[in-house]
């Protein structure tokens, strides 16, 4: 079958749903496709909160400056200004839609502290902010009545004369492949966490949209900038929110010292994530860790505060590590968390391919630059989700548009069937992914150097080879998760290569990208973005200067 809409949004997380709602309000026919039911999207994992300069004495300039500084001056300042200026309205809109944000004693919105911020400007719902936002956004989506293709997996974009005309997608339930024609397509397919092992991300975070757009000719930007979150649980790698440190928790080394006093004497535990993760890794590498971890100590916060504001992490630590944070410190370490990089867009979400838009974690505007501040990415999803949806709708309204042809569906179907029919040569998708993930954390981790990155390149080359042998053991078509994992693996391998290549290219240390062999930030050469273009014979690298409006780069201290 071929379905048809004006605007198609790929992904039903916060960014995708916000884009779809906005596009519909601009008077076009909109549909949203997602490989999982909307409320299963990974936005629900966000615990901490969402930033906005709403409080008295706060200003958008201050929020923007903190973001610029947090980004280690790699964020584009025009895009950051928009984010900070529109934040208050975006948070109020969410409140008006029904998010039960925590209040202060007077019944007004209450805030909490978050890393890298000069003011308490993080709005929150206990430690389930993402879950609350996702539920409310879904409610608004239901209200809008627009068409949802749930549990449909988008396999590729369809182009005609370099313009996007729709997508191909696998209906998981029937196993059938279909085409969906659209005049504009918005990619809001979230992050690529599964490229790394371990990672705080869900199993569905396989960067599909990024890879699909990349192969369709869209540029990727800032792919070397991968954030490691300072407090992920030993073992499972589950995230313990920064909200814990926002509420006053300490980080301790094996000697019981608050080691952050060495690298961030003022902000201590609330310095930027890259700073804290590096400090932790240094403690661990220099032998002052415990079993590859440092300790997060919440004991002095008291049972009441922990239970009312940090209930979710209390539950996670207890269930997954058997630690009661009321009574004991919990072992944590830096763990892969968030890609600052993604599909390059302008401030209207438009990519370098006509008709193609992107928003949320899949996109790179670039707001986050070298390092994302906590609670800025939920904000990114709602603001740039809306902007992309509006722009996509306005463009679609003006276009006649071509259709996805049956032949495109048939070709893709043949490619998929060929995968299913591959003979068993003993290569399993899960094993290849594991080797990729652990390799990426080893070589493209908190600390990097040329030797490791080159080794990583060899490893990925090998894995791509092995991928051609990976087989699909499940020959059925209904809900074939095995087939899905192979399609996802292909996407992840392309992205892993993008990360490795850009990390090798950037010969300086900035934000989350720390090169042991180039320890200094080098503004003279590297105040610019690295862009990648997909080519059959390997990625092509280009550069773009950072947009600076009013904040000249300075030395970054916390």
């Amino acid at each position, binding site marked *: 079958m071929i379905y048809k809409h004006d605007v198609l949004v790929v992904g039903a997380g916060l960014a995708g749903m916000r884009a779809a709602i906005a596009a519909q309000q601009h008077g076009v026919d909109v549909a949203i496709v997602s490989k*999982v*039911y909307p409320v299963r999207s990974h936005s629900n994992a966000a615990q901490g909160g969402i930033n906005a300069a709403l409080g008295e004495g706060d200003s958008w300039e201050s929020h923007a400056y903190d973001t610029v500084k947090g980004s280690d001056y790699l964020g584009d300042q025009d895009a950051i200004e928009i984010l900070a200026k529109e934040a208050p309205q975006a948070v109020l809109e969410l409140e008006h839609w029904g998010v039960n944000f925590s209040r202060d004693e007077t019944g007004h919105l209450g805030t909490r502290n978050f890393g890298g911020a000069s003011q308490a400007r993080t709005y929150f719902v206990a430690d*389930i902010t993402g879950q609350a936002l996702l539920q409310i956004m879904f409610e*608004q989506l239901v209200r809008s009545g627009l068409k949802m293709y749930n549990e449909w997996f988008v396999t590729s974009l369809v182009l005609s004369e370099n313009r996007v005309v729709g997508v191909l997608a696998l209906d998981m339930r029937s196993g059938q492949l279909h085409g969906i024609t659209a005049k504009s397509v918005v990619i809001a397919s979230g992050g690529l966490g599964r490229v790394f092992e371990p990672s705080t991300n*869900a*199993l569905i975070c396989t960067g599909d949209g990024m890879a699909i757009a990349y192969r369709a000719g869209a540029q990727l930007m800032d792919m070397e900038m991968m954030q490691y979150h300072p407090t992920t649980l030993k073992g499972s790698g589950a995230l313990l929110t920064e909200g814990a440190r926002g509420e006053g928790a300490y980080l301790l080394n094996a000697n019981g010292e608050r080691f952050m006093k060495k690298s961030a004497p003022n902000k201590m535990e609330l310095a930027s994530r890259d700073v804290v993760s590096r400090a932790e890794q240094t403690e661990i590498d220099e032998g002052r860790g415990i079993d590859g971890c440092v300790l997060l100590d919440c004991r002095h916060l008291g049972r009441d505060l922990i239970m009312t504001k940090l209930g979710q992490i209390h539950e996670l630590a207890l269930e997954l590590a058997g630690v009661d944070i009321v009574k004991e410190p919990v072992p944590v370490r830096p763990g892969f968390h968030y890609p600052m990089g993604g599909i390059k867009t302008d401030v209207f979400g438009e990519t370098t391919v006509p008709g193609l838009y992107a928003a949320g974690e899949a996109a790179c505007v670039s707001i986050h630059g070298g390092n994302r501040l906590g609670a800025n990415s939920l904000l990114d999803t709602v603001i740039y989700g809306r902007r992309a949806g509006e722009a996509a709708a306005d463009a679609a309204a003006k276009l006649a548009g071509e259709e996805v042809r049956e032949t495109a569906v048939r070709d893709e179907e043949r490619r998929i069937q060929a995968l299913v029919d591959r003979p068993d040569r003993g290569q399993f998708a899960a094993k290849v992914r594991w080797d990729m993930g652990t390799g990426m954390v080893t070589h493209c981790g908190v600390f990097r150097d040329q030797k490791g990155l080159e080794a990583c390149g060899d490893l990925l080359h090998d894995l791509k080879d092995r991928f051609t042998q990976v087989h699909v053991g499940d020959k059925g078509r209904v809900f074939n*998760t095995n087939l899905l994992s192979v399609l996802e693996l292909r996407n992840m391998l392309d992205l892993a290569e993008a990360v490795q290549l850009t990390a090798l290219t950037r010969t300086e240390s900035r934000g989350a990208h720390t090169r042991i062999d180039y320890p200094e930030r080098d503004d003279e050469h590297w105040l610019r973005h690295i862009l990648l273009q997909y080519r059959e014979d390997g990625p092509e690298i280009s550069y773009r200067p950072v947009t600076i409006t009013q904040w000249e780069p300075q030395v970054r201290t916390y």
Partner: protein
Amino acid sequence: MDIKLKVRRQNPEADDKPFWKDYAVEVPEYYTLLDALLKVREEVDETLALRCSCRSHICGSCGMRVNGHAALACKTKLSDLDQETVTVEPMGNMPVIRDLVVDLEPFWNKLYSIKPYLQPATDPPEREYVVPNETMFHLDGVVNCIMCGACVSDCESLSVNPIFIGPTAFAKEYRFVLDPRDAADRERLSQMNGPGGVWDCTHCFQCVEVCPKDVAPMDRIMAMRRMMMDMGMEQHNGAKRANAFMDLVGTYGRLDETRLLMRSVSGLGELMSFSKVGFRALWKGKLPPLKPHRIAGAPAVRRILERARNQRPRRFKVHQAQEEGVRA
């Protein structure tokens, strides 16, 4: 630790008949059931179909029946089960698509049927709604619901009464009824007064037991029943029964089933439909005495009932507060 997973499977592309398959795996102590199932899927049998994503009980994907009761696989620690064989089945009250994957469309449709979005009285204020933090905090308890369907899977009412809206949708409804910003509470509550509504809940506690997020749907349902009666929605047999129950216990200090029945139904016809049960009870000598007797402690029982009646969640509504000139 060695563990045997006994999994109920079903394949629509074969004969679609359920069958059991055993998997013996060796797993570390800290493994969850989901970890073990993924190990099976990755290393032993790639054809095993299941849904999962977050691995940290927040996405609601991995609901299934574990040893007969609905649970999240990622929240079920194998060592806590303390059993060598674990039975794994798809969730109940929902048709199976394949293996552990069930058809959730009816589940979502029921949710959509309650108009699951905020309906304020007027355009929003310029800034945020000013409301007491306790009311927002109270909502956390239901906003916590991750729509996993575990409660629906094990709901006893649903298993015999497919039109029952069900615990998930009602928990959601409660969220709006209690939300200070929602002004449609009267319509919402009266919608639930009809067939498939809150009175169809059999008070079986299953949803409370199996919910991985402590949403306690049944408690929400009971709270909404009380609100409906406070608003004067007392025509439903369920409401009549509740009133009669309180009245009888308040008067006699004990329950009188005969009068309870007579006052819970509408008209003689309906009463007659219970005649078979009545005759059988009479035959077995189980018919309650026709004239009830009052127990000695009746006044004390009455006082307890009164106190219970006054323990309601505080309801604060922005639109009413504005009309009445009160502030948060």
